[in-house]
């Protein structure tokens, strides 16, 4: 049962991901954004299969519900015609290939290094106590690091929008 569901969810996640970047029917950015939302939803399904309900819910709440809504918001306010006509640009392709290869490399390294079935998976289901304890004890430094990155991004946005208004 679970492996069948995994196959379904994974296939749909990959399919929607593909439609996000290479949609044969339309080049509208809105369609891409919506397929990205669907990808997020299928990914949440994969998290549920891993019994990580909290992460699944947060995935929907943060990515599908908030981040992608803002994406759509910005896409709609931009000039869509211009976006649809845009052709390949060398720098964009290079940056895309580089980031995909880098991400694949990091993921592959992690998978290769991990020892299969080394102890039970961390218990993320049930109450959020376990998750909180892990975040604030074991992984406190990376957690705080991420929050500093977010803070920097926030300050950057405020700075940019302030400069714009002058």
């Amino acid at each position, binding site marked *: 049962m679970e492996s069948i569901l995994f196959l379904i969810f994974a296939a749909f996640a990959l399919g929607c991901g593909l439609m996000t970047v290479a949609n044969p029917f339309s080049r509208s950015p809105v369609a891409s954004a919506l397929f990205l939302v669907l990808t997020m939803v299928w990914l949440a399904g994969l998290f549920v299969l891993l019994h990580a309900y909290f992460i699944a819910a947060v995935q929907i*709440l943060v990515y599908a519900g908030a981040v992608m809504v803002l994406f759509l918001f910005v896409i709609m306010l931009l000039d869509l015609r211009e976006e649809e006509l845009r052709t390949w640009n060398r720098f964009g392709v290079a940056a895309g290939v580089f980031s995909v290869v880098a991400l694949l490399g990091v993921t592959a390294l992690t998978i290769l290094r991990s020892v299969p079935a080394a102890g039970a998976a961390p218990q993320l289901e049930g109450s959020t106590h376990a998750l909180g304890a892990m975040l604030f004890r074991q992984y406190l430094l990376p957690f705080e690091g991420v929050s500093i990155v977010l803070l920097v991004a926030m300050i950057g946005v405020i700075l940019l929008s302030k400069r714009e208004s002058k």
Partner: protein
Amino acid sequence: MDWQFLAFSLVKIIAAFAVVMTMVAYSVLVERKVSAFIQDRLGPNRTQPFFAKYIPGLGPLLTRWGVFQPIADGLKAFLKEDFTPAHVRKVYFWLAPAIAMVPSLLTVAVIPFGSMMGAQKMVIADLDVGILYTFGIVSLGVYGIVLAGYAANSKYPFLGGIRSTAQMISYEISMGLSVIPIFLLVGSLNLGDVVQHQTGGWFAWHIFRQPLGFFIFLIAAFAETNRLPFDLPEADQELVGGYHTEYSSIKFALFFMAEYAAMIAVSGMMVTLFFGGWTLPFLGLDQPAATLGMGLLHILVFLGKVCCFLLLIIWVRWMLPRFRYDQLMDLGWRRFIPLALLNIVVTAGVLALLASK
């Protein structure tokens, strides 16, 4: 996967769906009757099927109360011409009403609408992350409206869609922050545990422990369901009808029903989080039911509380004027979010003090 679980879940889903849809139909009637009462009119009092006048006494009475009106409204919505303007983006135009409707129905899945019936818990999905699930689904609700605005491909719906995106994102934050103190108190995200925590006397209800949280949640609920005083996405006088200007027939009815289903869902959330869910603090009604009758009574208590909130939401619509858009944003970002954060810090501080004693 055991079949009993599947069968009972299916029964609960169908029953909850039927009850919600009936409540949607009749809350439209209540809306019209309440508005009529407030504006010193009579409201719908003519619709009657041919047999009604042969029922002595009761028939004319039901007609005067407009009991048959929702049936006629529903029939009309189905039978009217479904007109698709030429300039719309077809795929999104078809998708949007469905996407608007589904999230409001999905929210109902985690709300415990009763205690026990036999050995069955009266909640469709007893999730440990219940509240996060709800907020996740509620945050998806905005897509229906955004897509409707985009699909219509004309300026007023588009403005309505853009307004609603900004409004719903803003108020989601204060809504989410306002319930965190509840979960600090309860120590669990499961809505069943939240109800259990509110048993034992009136003052166990979270409304008395977190009045500020409730206040913020209530106002954010008005904004999230696009009801007056925050109905800017569909403000008739400025945007014609906002995001659903180009829609007709059953597609329009779906937006309309989605609004009422969202009202029911949000009322259910308020009842569960702040007003003790299916419990009442007397006659032993705050313990899980042992008999079928008690189980049924709990469901009725829950529905009664939900109806009170629906009435409140409807009443407010006909009493208050609409906010201006900058006032709406100012209220959301500069008043409610700081207040909600303060509420979290104070609650956490008090709990830490109590724990250290």
